[in-house]
């Protein structure tokens, strides 16, 4: 690539895509503010903003400590938070922390399963997750997999799979990969067929994984403390809402089987699930703890006077300034960043989206105030289009007392949170509070409701 060519985002960490960090050109601004690229914990440290204070602590650091101090006893953790709140970025940072030796604690062995990448998020079940874990082990620890998984596959699973998936290769690694692809891409009936078959082998599937984990953890000397083994399942919370019953069944019934795995598990969880009737028993069922990654608190509760929260606005503004030189690129300079922070309601992805949309209105700087308004209006239009009139009275109520009304139906609650009509904040206090997204407040449907 010549020096004059713009770097491509493919395969590069975010900060490596730009010529200058923070961005001095509009092209770099777009590349550095890609709303859908999580930050690489080491390469993107320069643009990472530590939000611990404004978020009321670092919940994921607590999970990491818990894992290190568990003394070999597997733990289970759920991580929740709005879409776009930065979960993946923080999970990747946690993974980096765990991979480092700390004191007497050896570096952890990590398996990162991106559900979006490997599974069919419109329809996921336990068998799919187990098979995806098998494939992941084959890819990341082929020797251990060959020793532990190969014999079990041949002995107890391959014949079952062959009945459903034709042309299965004889070699176990290839066969597993093919089955994962089959499960991901097959139609609903075929999916069910293979799941039924694999369901009968759930025991061997779990057993195989545990054997592989033991192989990987085998210490080099008797004095060595075995390395913690952590399975991190990300993006599972993006499961299609159309399959709501299946989602709840997966979390509340089927994933209990994962507790039999001899590994620490960190699993992302849809934000609404803990707060619905169905999800209320989640902790009781699994134990462990739900860590919520809240939005940046750019506003204050009504009870505290309402209006802007200067600390939150400052944090979000600073986050944006790490990526873009507002003084050089925006007509309103730093004020533009502050306005974006307000528009976003503390949702990082929304802030980046508004920024990018405004920047892309221009071939050259400066990005005008009008463009920023139009970018926000564009997102507002998305909300307007999607907002059912029936939700407005509830939104009005939430705006008044920062909590869901007691009689709010589960489904409405789920949709309001999932689609970010309502944002959840939790700044250090144990109880979360809620507010209507600032751009929803500007919607005609909302404003015109008496």
């Amino acid at each position, binding site marked *: 690539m010549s020096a004059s060519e713009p770097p491509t*985002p*493919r395969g590069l960490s975010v900060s490596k*895509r730009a010529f200058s960090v923070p961005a001095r050109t509009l092209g770099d601004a777009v590349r550095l503010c890609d709303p*859908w690229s999580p930050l690489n914990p080491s390469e993107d440290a320069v643009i990472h903003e530590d939000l611990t204070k404004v978020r009321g602590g670092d919940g994921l650091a607590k999970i990491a400590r818990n894992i290190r101090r568990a003394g070999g006893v597997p733990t289970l953790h759920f991580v929740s938070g709005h879409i776009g709140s930065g979960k993946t970025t923080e999970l990747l940072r946690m993974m980096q922390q765990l991979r480092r030796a700390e004191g007497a604690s050896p570096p952890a062995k990590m398996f990162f399963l991106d559900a979006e990448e490997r599974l069919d998020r419109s329809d996921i079940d336990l068998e799919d997750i187990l098979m995806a874990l098998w494939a992941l082990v084959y890819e990341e620890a082929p020797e251990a997999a060959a020793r532990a998984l190969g014999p079990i596959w041949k002995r107890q699973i391959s014949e079952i799979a062959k009945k459903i998936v034709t042309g299965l290769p004889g070699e176990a690694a290839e066969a597993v990969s*093919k089955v994962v*692809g089959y499960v991901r891409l097959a139609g609903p009936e075929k999916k069910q067929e293979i799941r039924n078959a694999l369901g009968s082998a759930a025991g061997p599937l779990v057993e195989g994984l545990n054997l592989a984990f033991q192989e990987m953890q085998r210490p080099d000397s008797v004095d060595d403390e075995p390395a913690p083994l952590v399975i991190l399942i990300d993006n599972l919370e993006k499961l299609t809402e159309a399959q709501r019953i299946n989602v709840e069944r997966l979390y509340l019934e089927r994933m209990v089987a994962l507790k039999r795995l001899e590994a620490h598990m960190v699993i992302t969880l849809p934000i609404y699930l803990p707060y619905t009737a169905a999800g209320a028993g989640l902790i009781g069922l699994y134990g462990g703890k739900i860590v919520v990654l809240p939005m940046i608190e750019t506003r204050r509760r009504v009870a505290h006077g309402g209006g802007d929260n200067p600390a939150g606005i400052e944090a979000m503004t600073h986050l944006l300034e790490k990526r873009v030189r507002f003084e050089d690129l925006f007509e309103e300079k730093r004020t533009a960043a502050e306005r974006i922070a307000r528009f976003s309601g503390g949702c990082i992805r929304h802030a980046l989206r508004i920024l990018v*949309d405004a920047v*892309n209105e221009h*071939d050259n700087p400066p990005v005008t105030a009008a463009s920023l308004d139009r970018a926000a209006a564009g997102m507002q239009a998305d909300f307007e289009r999607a907002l059912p009139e029936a939700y407005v009275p509830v939104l009005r109520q939430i705006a008044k007392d920062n909590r869901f009304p007691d009689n709010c139906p589960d489904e409405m609650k789920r949709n309001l949170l999932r689609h970010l009509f309502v944002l959840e904040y939790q700044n250090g206090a144990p109880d979360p509070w809620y507010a209507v997204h600032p751009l929803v407040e500007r919607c005609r449907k909302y404003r015109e409701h008496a």
Partner: protein
Amino acid sequence: MIPAGAPLAVLTPESERALASLRRAILRMGGFGFYVVLSGDLGRVELLRRLRAWSGTEGIPELHFFPEGKEAAAKIDRFLAESDRKHPLGGAVIPDGGALFEVDGGSIYGALNIARDMLGKLVQGPLVLVIPEHRLKDLVRLATDLFEVRLATLLVEREHTPVPPSPERVEEGRARRVALAEPNMGVATIFVGRDDELREIEAALLPATGEVQPVALQGMPGVGKSYLADRFAYLHKDRFPGGYVKLSLSPEEKRSTEALGGDLAARLGQNLWGTDQAWAMLRARLLSPRVLLHIENADGDEAAAAAMELASRLAECAVIVSGRFQGLGLSRPWRRVEVPVLDEEAALMQLAKEIAPPLWAKIRAEDRSTLVGELGYLPLALHLAAGYLRRGQSIDRLLQLFRAEKLSLSQDPAQVERIVGLALERSIRLLGEALGDKAETWLPAFFALGEAPPSGVGRSLGAAIAGLKEHEFEELMSRAEELSLVQRLPDGERSEGAWRVHPLLAALLRQRSDGRGLEGMTRWFLARLRKGGEDQGLRWNQIQREEEALITWLGRVPPENKVRVLKASLWYPISNGPYPAWLDFSERLLQERNEPDIRSSALWTLSHIALRSDNLDRAYDAAREMSRLNLARGAKRETAIAAGLIAEILTARGDLDEALRTWREDVLPVFESLGEARARAVTLGKIADILVTRGDLDEALRIRREEELPVYERLGEVRERAIALGKVADILMTRGEIDEALRIIREEELPVFERLGERHSLVRDRINMTHLLLKRDHPTDRREAASLLALALRDAEVMHIPEADQIRAIQKRHGL
């Protein structure tokens, strides 16, 4: 004429801005990412066309177009199912480019899901989904947050607003009627060689000294004669400020020189035809501002003779006649320029320009030379082959085919036809493959396009010729365009999407056509010609946009359908023209048919058209013949109608006394005896017109108010009432009752014409209002008058009506 209410794909400025943002987003992300564009139904075609035009340009990778997302998803599924790769998503279906999906049917959620999965795995470049706005309503939040859509933007299109037209639309109207700002997309970028020929044309048409010579471009079919003329027009467009006008002759061209001249005059906005004065006007129009006229497809001896005679009547005008007729331009004062096939270097250059550089680089040098040789260095064949290769087809298969046929190029037209035919055959086979299951029905539809007019057809008419729905036709054209089988007309000529087929390809397609094309064209025009109904404006505007097709069709209407056409089109020709073509149609019908009722109708049409063309002698003769014919058969009503026509011609000649007598004695009593209230009211209105001219205002006003208007009100004749009210206003204006006259025009007349889309009436009314305002001279009257005149001038210029000069004169006189 600018269409009123026609559904044009015009993107709003907001949408244009959103589109520009989308392009920047893709470019700045290094040609990557997942983008959803929301579109309304009306502008989707235009939107897709624009997005596809980005493909392979300035940092955006090639975008593979999947017209229907659901179908595309099924294709991907099949691909994966048949793949034996290790990881089902491990390879790339589209390793170098991106994908553009049009998603309408099926599950939008499913399409988003599949598309998201494909990104970066199956598709390495940008992935753009175009989704109807209403279909994403409930999922828009998911699209933007869950599916990682990088830019979801709403593209709202607007229909063309008829009043007032924007300056851009006026410009477009000018371009359509008079000139092609950019004659052909390819002439600027793909054209190669021909330097000697271009110099020769320049010497003839733009001589440094001496007289202008007409140019005859002669050469075998497919050699690029029209393309050469287009290139010349492009290179010298500054020297022809009046524009570039193309007159396309059809294979079975039967128009006489007179008819061709009349059609050309109509294209230039000149209604007067049929006299020596009209020829002088046409010549003057072509000379200043200077116009370049290109008469193409002079292939047969009759067509070539008519074209050459037309050129000879237009002495000193810049005229190019192109065709394969061997005898073209052999005599003085013609400059004959023979157009040969390309030399090898130029042929290679053309092919290289038409094929994307990466693809060209993959073809071995010896294969390139062999291929252009096998294709006879013939530009049309090269063009087809480029389309074939662009689709990723093997060059070897193409070469094998030509070797098997052992073809070599000569001047023999049959041999040329075989070479082009072979290339066409391959392209049609590819088209069939691209169409998949639809090929069985769509290929015959494509063949029917051989019957389309050589000037090209728009979406609606094209669909009728092909026997397809409009969106199907559009898709078919997109596929055919990719294979170089059709050429999309430049936006400057037809912004709403229109295509033409090369005459030689058209001839080959006609050999396979089942004859549906002419039937389809007839059905299309017949469905739109009739007068009345709320959709009249829309229907007539559609026809006006296909004026050249109308001319071609009128020359081809089979005898058994001519009477149907005559009866369906009573008022359209009179209101809209083009007069020479309708005149020719009527004259031929009169030669063919002897039935009194048919002749009567044809004579009525002919007389009216001749009257509008200022050909009063022919109009009078036709009206007299109509009168005699109906008198002889005792048809009272028709006799009275003929008498009314005669009275109108007498009025045009200035013989008001005889005209008034005719209305009063020959027409009015007949309608009174027949009890035809409306016809009686119209007749009284004509009498009132003459009374006004003679200064008898009180009697004229009485007739209007007491006898004419009540009838129209009773019958609900909105338009006639508005016209009558306008005339009442005229009388009031003459009598100095300005406020009431203004009120009538503003409140009762203009709204009706605006609703009916009657542009000419609007121009007249606005001029009248200007006069009234200037006369009244209240403080804000001058400003309003200036604004009204500006609106009127725009419309008048678009329509090329004489009122334009009148308006300019008023502006100058009053400093407006």
